[in-house]
């Protein structure tokens, strides 16, 4: 028990003293997760608009498949990216395996179902009259869709934050395609997993506290957005 207490105190010391390695890992985590989240949103929000405002056979089936993929296991995405980027894989020549870029790719794919599904829900929550009125005032379909997106901007921002929260806290994928290389692909979650298994508890706890604080921040932003 005393040992644990000492570890916690040490962990706080690491954070307060702005330990170089802690800062480095935190920064990398934020950068990778933010990038993958932005990519996922940039692809999926317009897609959500197109899907929501068009009717095609199998639309409902498609949406329920997307919703099922909310619980897509990270290791499966990891496996997919690994096969894709491994030396003998179709994109093996690019030499991307075990790079931050591979992690971004994996996380972006992992986030797509959530961002797309919640994005469609966000647009669905907007009064249908908004689209109608926009068309009635001479908007084209793109302009009317953009107007609906503007009306749901808080819900969409919330979706993005939730995606970011998912990305920064996942570990399986980062470990598999990033490789947890120190100073290169090591992130908060992969570092915690490694340091814990090495018995370096104070370092793991310090990173854990930072991860929790980040999660708390994301949550607070989501809560604030919800009230808008």
């Amino acid at each position, binding site marked *: 028990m005393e040992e644990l207490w000492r570890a916690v105190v040490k962990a706080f010391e690491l954070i307060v003293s702005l330990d170089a390695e802690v800062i480095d890992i935190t920064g990398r985590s934020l950068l990778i997760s933010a990038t993958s989240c932005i990519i996922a949103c940039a692809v999926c929000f317009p897609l959500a608009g197109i899907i929501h405002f068009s009717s095609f056979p199998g639309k409902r089936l498609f949406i329920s498949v997307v919703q099922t993929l909310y619980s897509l296991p990270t290791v499966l995405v990891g496996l997919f990216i690994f096969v894709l980027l491994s030396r003998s894989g179709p994109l093996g020549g690019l030499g991307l395996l075990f790079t931050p870029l591979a992690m971004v790719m994996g996380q972006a794919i992992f986030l797509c179902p959530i961002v797309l599904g919640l994005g469609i829900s966000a647009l669905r929550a907007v*009064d249908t*009259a*908004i689209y*109608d*009125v*926009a*068309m*009635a*005032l*001479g*908007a*084209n379909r793109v*302009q009317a869709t953009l*107007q609906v997106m*503007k*009306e749901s901007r808080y819900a969409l921002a919330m979706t993005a934050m939730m995606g970011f929260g998912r990305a920064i806290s996942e570990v399986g994928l980062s470990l598999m395609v990033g490789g947890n290389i120190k100073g290169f692909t090591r992130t908060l979650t992969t570092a915690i997993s490694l340091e814990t298994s090495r018995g370096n508890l104070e370092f793991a706890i310090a990173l854990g506290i930072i991860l929790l604080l980040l999660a708390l921040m994301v949550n607070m932003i989501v809560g604030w957005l919800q009230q808008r």
Partner: protein
Amino acid sequence: MTLIEARGLEKYYQSRPVLKGVTLQINSGEVLALIGPRGAGKTTLLRLLDLLESPSRGEIYFNGVNVTSSERLRFFVRRRMSFVTQRTVVFSGTVADNIACGLKWRGERWQMVSDRVESVLELIGMSQYANRDARTLSVGETQLVALARALVIEPEVLFLDEPTANLDPVSAARVEAVLTQFIRLRNMTVVMATHDMLQGQRLAGRIAVIMGGQLLQVGESRQIFCAPATKEVAEFVGVENILPGKVDSNNGSLAVIDIEGIKLEAITACKPGELVWAIVRPEDITFAKVRGYTSARNVFPGRIQRVASVGALVRIEVDCGFPLLGVLTKRSAEDIGVEQGGEVYVSFKATAVHVIGRQ
């Protein structure tokens, strides 16, 4: 000059017919009111005419050009019109943002947009509201903003769907005043749907009556109110005396119509033996205590069944062999001394009777 022409428009929603062959011409610069009960197809017809939706069958011509099927042409023409939907919603943002939308979507220059928005705000008397969050407005103000949003485009054609249906009388009057002002100022073509036939009469030059997806009558408001084409139209425009009868004889279009054994004279081309509805507007009926001299050809003694006050008027139901309803001012009612169960002479001219065929 015909600006918009609809030929045989039909519209089905999931094989349910909403419009059944509507043919209609809208002249440039006129105000046309579509009146009809709820669910008659007014909104659908407006949406088709505004090119927001495509008809299942039939064609729409704009300035003589068939715009039914070319998507590009439809969009181009749609941008020259604007539509105020029945359920108005405001976009998030300020009142000025809302009004500017239509112009921004048309890619107008920023300076021009702000000038136009300012002048429209002034016209609707809401200049001081320009920077207010549009979602904090009252229902009446919201409707004015919705109207301004459509007017700022300076459309060639303005479509209005029940512009005052959800408003209190004061707000409704304000909306009507703004509308009237704009119509006069811009010489716009306006097509408005309303179930309030009096509003139709106040604002429109011509009225089209639509019921059950069919256009039953189109004409000047006087024509619709005094000479409804069918019994349904007569009922809808509030004619209360619709009497079933049979033409006895017709002598140079002065016909005698038998109504439950009582002979009534009317001007009509209907031939003897034809089954008809004889329609008499309550305002055209005069009452007298004694049978004096009158030029009216129809004079009947009757017994007063019921007397009811409606605002400044008194409605009197008389049984003169057939039921007849008339209205009087309170003052005249007192002068004549109408009371329930009392006897009275009712009279109306042969020209006051409008006769339509009955199957």
